[in-house]
């Protein structure tokens, strides 16, 4: 059992007040009763009141924070796909050229830096030196650019590597050779024989990528002072805000589960061999 409670303060509270508080939040019941209560609430889509923010329910906080985090997370995922996939195929197609080498160097650089370091460098460049973009806070679309970039770029690098590997083997495969021998233009070869194959490892990567983006957003939201789920989660773990952290964990797990499920379904459609692997 975790020591320390949500009502720990510098000054000790009078016993009566503490008892009142504990009764209000049902902390005086047995563990089993509490567990049953929260389970029952969960089925009603309720997470109860927040411990740290008095008078606000967890559902309210989640409703406020979820859109911010969703916009950030999906933005980053989309950016990673749009940047990583085409560059990966390009790099494989131009294997061992300067383009390939510089793209590979860039991707290993992006994979080697934690995203908050990336964020710091981006802020000092784009916000302090060039003064193009705001360094923190939430607001218009301009506030979204830097966080989305910093969260998405490491995943773009990973998708780049996956796409490049798969495209390389697709370019050397028999169907591609036959298509080229028949005189199919290179653009068509890439479109018909290379592009569909690169989708397979990338879709398989979507599940882990979602998990990574969730944890990445914990940090990125802190750096850019975005009031999303990630900031709330870290705060709630430190504040002992049981209901809020439970709510966010449930939401995270549901998000991850749903995305992984859809990724698996999509994967089976893309590659029929996976379906028959039983």
């Amino acid at each position, binding site marked *: 059992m975790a020591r320390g409670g949500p009502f720990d303060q510098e000054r000790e509270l009078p016993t009566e007040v503490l008892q009142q508080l504990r009764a209000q939040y049902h902390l005086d019941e047995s563990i089993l009763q509490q567990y049953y209560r929260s389970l029952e609430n969960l089925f009603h889509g309720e997470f109860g009141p927040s411990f740290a923010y008095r008078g606000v329910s967890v559902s309210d906080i989640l409703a406020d924070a979820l859109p911010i985090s969703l916009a950030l997370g999906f933005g980053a995922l989309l950016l990673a796909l749009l940047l990583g996939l085409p560059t990966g195929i390009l790099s494989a197609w131009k294997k061992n050229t300067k383009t390939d080498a510089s793209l590979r160097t860039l991707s290993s650089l992006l*994979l080697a830096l934690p995203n*908050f370091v990336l964020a*710091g*460098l981006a*802020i000092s460049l784009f*916000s302090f030196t060039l003064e193009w973009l705001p360094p923190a806070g939430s607001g218009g679309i301009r506030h979204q650019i830097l966080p989305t970039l910093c969260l998405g770029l490491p995943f773009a690098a990973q998708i780049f590597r996956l796409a490049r590997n798969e495209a390389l083997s697709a370019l050397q495969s028999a169907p591609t050779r036959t298509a080229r021998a028949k005189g199919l233009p290179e653009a068509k070869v890439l479109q018909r024989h290379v592009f569909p194959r690169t989708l397979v490892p990338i879709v398989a990567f979507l599940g882990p990528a979602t998990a990574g983006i969730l944890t990445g957003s914990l940090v990125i939201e802190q750096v850019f002072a975005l009031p999303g789920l990630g900031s709330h989660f870290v705060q709630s*773990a430190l504040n002992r805000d049981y209901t809020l952290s439970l709510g966010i964990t449930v939401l995270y797990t549901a998000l991850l589960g749903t995305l992984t499920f859809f990724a698996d379904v999509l994967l089976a459609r893309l590659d029929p061999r996976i379906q028959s692997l039983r």
Partner: protein
Amino acid sequence: MKRADALTLSFLLLLAGAALFLPWLSLPAPDTMELGDQLIPPQWTEHPILGTDSKGRDLFVRTLAGARISLWVGLLGSFVALLIGLPYGAISGLFGGRTDRFMMRLADFFESVPITILVLFLLSILGEYRVELQELGLSRLHIFFFAVGFLFWLPTARIARAEALRLRQALFVDAARSLGASPKEILIRHFFPNLLPASVVIMTLTIPRVILMETFLSFLGLGVEPPGVSWGILAKEGLAAMNPLVQSWWLLAVPATALGLTLICLNHWGDKISDSFRANT
């Protein structure tokens, strides 16, 4: 690519050597504050070659001290992951059938939960028990190793299982079995020695990820704690010191460069070793 190999390897060896022998080099301690020498930008050729921070501490010394902790965390953290994952995967692969299915579904279950989030929780709860744990001789760093091991044992277990499935059909394992060797004997005498190459591959792939995880957790205040120095702590301090009025870019740029270079070199060798391993099997 020969030149890249030599370059990355010599960088890693140099860094590891400097980190290892840091206490014997005649340098000031990483937390020596020189009042009056605050926020000096890098001089490159003379005394504070990489500058000083807002408390007048020499950033060059601090980066080396950070390397000491970060590399150590990477090495030991991956070793813990190996210690959990290798036997798990080997046992699952050796017994096969129902045991295998159960153990792998359990692994799937762990993979479907955002474990990092659970580990964050675990670390913040264990923070409350610091005094008791210290009495048991466990510091925060030890807990951190377990947490990291817990995070990274899954891929290790999968690689180990794939290897074990291959080994299970090897003739010498058949021979041992027909001579009446128990599963325990097969595991110890035949599996673990043969899983050694795979372990090296797993280690080289895991170390950079653990180092990144350390910076992540230190940033959230759940990893290494000041006055301890790691690259995560340095990067965090560099980020915190950033503001548009006072120049202090080197506080972030120096640890970021050290971290980036090290991880690029480690990744390079990780890819190389796993490629040659795959070519051999």
